[in-house]
């Protein structure tokens, strides 16, 4: 596992990211993918209070919602970074969303998916250590400049 500190955020550089919706994608050795939320998305969400995830067996396309998250009484959708069918859901994170805040790349994963079009969709994500780092640097700088994040 490759982890790098990018402007104060610990990021895995061996994953692919949807930097617009703040989701990460890990391709597992089984060919399935695991999906979770990145630390920048968590930072801008506030304290997570509630999480809903679609059930095992449900399919969705990239860009569709696979669940919802509530923080600060604000309900927002979780947007799928890739298309596929859900094969596993992290029930522990539903019971205690604190897992997502405390360990977003580990115990805080959200769903596993049998991908439907991974070869076409992975290139649409940010991947590769250098690209991940540079993309997050730009995004974090932009968020700080715009007051989205504290200086």
């Amino acid at each position, binding site marked *: 596992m490759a982890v790098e500190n990018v402007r104060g955020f610990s990021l895995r550089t061996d994953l692919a990211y949807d930097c617009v919706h703040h989701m990460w994608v890990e391709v597992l050795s089984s060919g399935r993918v695991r999906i979770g939320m990145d630390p920048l998305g968590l*930072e*801008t*969400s*506030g*304290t*997570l*209070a*509630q*999480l*809903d995830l679609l059930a095992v067996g449900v399919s969705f396309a990239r860009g569709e919602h696979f669940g*919802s998250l*509530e*923080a*600060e*009484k*604000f*309900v*927002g*959708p979780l947007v799928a970074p890739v298309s596929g069918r859900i094969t596993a859901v992290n*029930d522990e994170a*539903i*019971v*205690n*969303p*604190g897992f997502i805040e405390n360990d977003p790349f580990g115990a805080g994963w959200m769903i596993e998916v049998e991908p439907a079009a991974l070869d076409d969709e992975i290139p649409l994500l940010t991947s590769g250590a250098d690209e991940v780092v540079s993309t997050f640097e730009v995004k974090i700088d932009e*968020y700080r400049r*715009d*007051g*989205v*994040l504290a200086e």
Partner: protein
Amino acid sequence: MEPADTLRVIDFGSVSPLRSQTLWHAAARGVSDGSPPTLSFCRPNGPYVGIGYHRRLAEIDLDWCSRRNVPVYRRMVGGGPVYLDSGQFFFQISLPLSSVPPSRPKALRFLLEPAVEAFTSCGIEAHLDERLEVTVGDRKICGYGAGQIGDAVIVVGNLIETFDHASAAAILRTPSPTARAELDRLVNRYIAATPADPDRFQRAAVEAYSDALGLRPEYGALNETEHSHLAELDELFADPVWLQGQERPSRPGWQAKVKAGVWLFEASRDGTALTLGIDGDQILSAAVADPDLNGQADELAASLVGQPIEALRSRLATAGRPGRRLGRLWELAEPGRVG
């Protein structure tokens, strides 16, 4: 369609409890479809209970609601179960997602500050505290919820002209008479009505939101598409399956929030029970029970009041084995995650 620099203002007037929810959901869907940013107002013409999108219906005392013919509706925005009635004047602001800061706390501050300005214009010394609660002193005066509906963001809140504290507490299911009594006390202590002229509040809100958003207010109504959304939403919100919500595992222990930072916790196991009222990091009230406390329960509980929550376990440990049993119950609490 209105020009891009317009804030559409809709006064829905006095409407049924169902419509006091579905009208603004329809407006938000309209904003998502391309209608201009919309500030709307309405007042329910009867009492009901509203429950946040993610919350378990089991949190509500449905028997109490049923006995009083108080309907329950699930909204698409966040927050907990709340008692609503005609003494509350609702406002809703809905904007395209792209118009609000990507940080949720900042988006809420951005969309609540004009409401606070409207309160102050009515002579109410309101402020938005660090926990994003609209307060006068240390009392909450405005309930709100927020969410993304399609590509629109909406924040809904209320001017509480009169507040039925007893009903507001009674709608919540509690695990014990101890928890019930403390819930009643904290609701009375921390939630306040701020009687004000609703027309004046509405005018002030229109001005404050227009100024903050740099938009020109123009009174309007739902369009044809939004009326179609409204019909769908009326049906959806009356559907028992929607009301039930997504099945979710229950969390151990019982928690209820009174206002941001102030909450109640109770857990019990095999005759050992711990009930706490908490404000931020301080214990406001405590009750303990354990078969081996041998008459020391009241003394132990009293020693906890006023202490920082961090000191809870060490204080309990002074009571030996029963204290440690009580301490283990505290592990079930999830501070900060009471919506």
